[in-house]
């Protein structure tokens, strides 16, 4: 069966510091991968998605970036965090093609920027 891991689970970082959040998927090959953010009082917002190694698309302009160095690894980064980057970050995967619209989420990272 498929499993998705995220770490760290919680993180407190000062404004201006760098960020690296990691997501890995097990039990599937060639998944589509996604990063979402859930901020207080707002719905889940898609940040990035990837259909393959090195292929990243961004949905919203921001000071975050994403990378996919391996098929089942997805990384979310920032060079300098802003207060507005605080939130709950969720990684998700879905199958390729057809009608595989279901996405399955990792446990999330709660980021507080102080």
């Amino acid at each position, binding site marked *: 069966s498929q499993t998705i891991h995220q770490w760290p689970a919680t993180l407190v970082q000062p404004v201006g510091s760098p960020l690296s959040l990691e997501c890995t998927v097990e039990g599937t090959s060639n998944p589509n991968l996604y990063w979402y953010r859930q901020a207080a009082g707002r719905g889940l917002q898609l940040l990035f998605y990837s259909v393959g190694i090195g292929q990243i698309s961004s*949905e919203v302009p921001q000071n975050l970036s994403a990378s996919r160095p391996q098929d089942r690894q997805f990384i979310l980064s920032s060079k300098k965090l802003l207060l507005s980057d605080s939130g709950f970050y969720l990684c998700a995967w879905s199958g390729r093609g057809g009608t595989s619209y*279901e996405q399955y989420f990792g*446990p999330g990272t709660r980021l507080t920027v102080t």
Partner: protein
Amino acid sequence: EDKVVQSPLSLVVHEGDTVTLNCSYEVTNFRSLLWYKQEKKAPTFLFMLTSSGIEKKSGRLSSILDKKELFSILNITATQTGDSAIYLCAVPSLSGGGADGLTFGKGTHLIIQP
């Protein structure tokens, strides 16, 4: 821009009650509608609906889609305290890159009192 609106935003009922959660959507190219349950961490997948009028059922939970009126409902009968959660509705939004990010509503925060 695709849009998902859920109502009510919060709901408090007593154990044993039946609840109906609503989701309306506007989407350029409808493929499906998904329901998720979010407790403290990651959303967990409940249902995917693609056809009007066909009820999906899992235990005390059921859901149905109306593609003409552009809405879906999620019913929970004989509620239990373990049903307390945020229920999220989402539609795949065509991202143009071979992966479909989900556009989420803000969710319905359901609280079941003993």
